[in-house]
């Protein structure tokens, strides 16, 4: 590419600060590289591949030399491309009820129909990478085990995992010991599958890198404390891709360092994520993947920025400790928001809403994701009374578009901003 001799050294930085973050392009490239690596390994058999749940023991898998694929990311891609609805019908024909996880139904449906969202990255990718093992943790939900079990039966591949306690108040040593033991029990079958002994140094390295990823991602998200925020929910959803799929790798750490540098530059120059941040919102629950851009325009058009969310905060594993990888993994994966009781969740939301100086909270009640929908047991009402800010629930789904009435949601969001404008809690 020819170099523009008239550009000064200042201008490349200036370009990054306007509009989209440059880090979003870096994230897209990292994700593409991740999937191409998996694709090549799947084709050639050069490296063993493990499918893992998004908050599953990926550090252990990397420590055993596996490349790691996360089906949930694929399901989100299907949702973002609005392919899910048609694909879910096939899963329904096998008896998977319309009320259960739409990620599961659309991903399984894609496989049944021999299609994949990964073809958008490269047309040579015609299916997800073939797994040598499927590894789950039910810390997030039971559906992940049902999902992986389908593939285990279909592909005749070992499906192993961790059954975590859920709805936890205080995380006790008993909880940690139970999960740690189950993680240890995965080692023998994984060694057999990979034909490799667990390399403790690799495990420590992966754990250390995951920890670094967590802290860097947390730092990036905490820029949302600043008013106006340099980060929007819409941008964060793109930026978090590598945090999920590449955590435990140096590439993810390097990317997050670059992201933080760019956010720091935005802050020092006073560049906000949206032009007119009049109101700051907390979003609890899943994104509506098939309507991200519409939702972003809806909020920004009304001068509202989603400056914090439960979802983006979910990939912060502060308890990871390279010196004690397995017990620290057990703790880190068990103390997550999604695993906790409503009392703990409510306390977290109260604290976080204040830290991020939000003016209102929106709960997304995803029809087929009860574990990520926290509006079903009165929490919105309790938060409204306690925080004295508007709290609203909208109804939709993360990828099942038939559950999403965008007109109704648009009315609710606009009315929510009107309520904020009126100053009535």
């Amino acid at each position, binding site marked *: 590419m020819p170099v523009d001799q008239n550009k000064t050294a200042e201008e490349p930085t200036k370009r990054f600060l306007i509009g989209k973050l440059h880090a979003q392009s870096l994230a897209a490239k990292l994700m593409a590289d991740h999937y191409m690596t998996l694709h090549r390994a799947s084709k050639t058999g050069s490296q063993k591949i493990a499918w893992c749940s998004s908050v599953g023991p990926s550090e252990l898998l990397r420590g055993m030399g596996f490349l790691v694929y996360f089906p949930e990311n694929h399901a989100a891609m299907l949702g973002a491309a609005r392919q899910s609805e048609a694909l879910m019908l096939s899963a329904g024909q096998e008896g998977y009820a319309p009320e259960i996880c739409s990620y599961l139904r659309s991903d399984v449906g894609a496989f049944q129909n021999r299609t994949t969202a990964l073809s958008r990255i490269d047309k040579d990718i015609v299916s997800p990478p073939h797994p040598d093992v499927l590894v789950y943790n039910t810390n997030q939900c039971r559906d992940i085990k049902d999902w992986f079990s389908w593939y285990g039966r279909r592909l005749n591949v070992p499906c192993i995992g961790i059954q975590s306690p859920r709805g936890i108040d205080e995380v006790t040593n008993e909880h940690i010991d139970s999960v740690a033991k189950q993680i240890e029990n995965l080692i023998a079958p994984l060694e057999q599958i990979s034909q490799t002994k667990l390399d403790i140094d690799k495990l420590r390295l992966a754990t250390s890198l995951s920890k670094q990823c967590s802290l860097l991602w947390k730092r990036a998200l905490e820029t949302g404390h600043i008013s106006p925020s340099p980060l929007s929910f819409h941008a964060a959803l793109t930026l978090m891709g590598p945090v999920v799929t590449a955590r435990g790798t140096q590439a993810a750490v390097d990317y997050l360092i670059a992201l933080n540098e760019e956010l720091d530059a935005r802050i020092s120059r006073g560049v906000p994520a949206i032009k007119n941040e009049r109101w700051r919102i907390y979003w609890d629950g899943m994104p509506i993947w098939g309507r991200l851009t519409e939702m972003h325009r809806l909020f920004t058009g009304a001068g509202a920025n989603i400056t914090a969310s439960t979802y983006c905060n979910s990939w912060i594993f502060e308890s990871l400790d390279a010196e004690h990888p397995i017990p620290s993994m057990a703790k880190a994966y068990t103390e997550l928001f999604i695993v906790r009781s409503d009392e703990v969740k409510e306390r977290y939301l109260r604290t976080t809403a204040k830290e991020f100086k939000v003016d209102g909270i929106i709960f997304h*009640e995803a029809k087929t994701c009860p574990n990520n929908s926290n509006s079903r047991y009165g929490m919105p*009402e309790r938060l*409204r009374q306690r925080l004295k800010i*508007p*709290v*609203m*629930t909208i*109804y939709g789904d993360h990828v099942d578009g038939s*559950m999403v*009435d965008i*007109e*109704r949601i648009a*009315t*609710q969001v*606009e*009315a929510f901003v*009107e*309520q904020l404008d*009126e*100053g*009535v*809690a």
Partner: protein
Amino acid sequence: MRTVFAGIDVGSSATKVVLINADNELQGSAAVPTGLYFAEAARTALQSALNTCDRTMTDVAATVSCGYGRRNVDFADGVRTEIACLAKGIHLFFAEEVLVLDIGGRDIKTVHVDASGKQGDFKMNAQCAAGTGAFLEDIAFRMHIPLEQLNALGESAAAPVPVGSHCTVFAAGEVLTAARSGAPVENIVLGIYHSMVKRVIEMISTEKPIVLSGGVAAHHPIVCRLLAEVLGRKVGIPPFPQFTSAFGAAVFAKRITMNNQE
């Protein structure tokens, strides 16, 4: 001289227009079926409303649209949600803090309105038309009873036949079962109204005065009576309950004019 302010509520079933003067007094109104062409429905309804008070478009100082088709009203000077307009409209008739419960063609909304007319917390029904005007329309169709006769039939009933289903189609099945076993039609109709009230009760969580608005309140006032019985307290209805949001939109239109004059 432009002397009226127009509020247009483009609902999923009907488009309502209200014209008010500077003192918020009703000058004219009209309602037409919305159909598929929202802008056309808005123009037709506005012209009809102007006709009722011998005025023309040149008398309209400003127009605000609300409702499902609010963004299709290309000649509106402003757009607000029907929720904001509901709050403004109800405050014209109820000066105290209230919870307004609006039952429309396919929506149920509750909105807290404080004593100064400001819009507070609101709720909308989840993705289900149970308890809305669409529910009544469907049941009337399946029972081969003109919609406009339902209210009187319900009022004449001795006792309701229980109808439990949330789903309109399944509720229609219960209606057929009841009819087959010889239940009087009016008792079945009363049961339908009771099931509507059960749906909306779930959305009420306040001891504040309740006000009922919307098309269902306008054409099926029995719902107001039943709601009051279940809640054990008075339930108010504004004048022209189907036009409450349009009233509010007209107030917003007046505000636009006043802001422009400052």
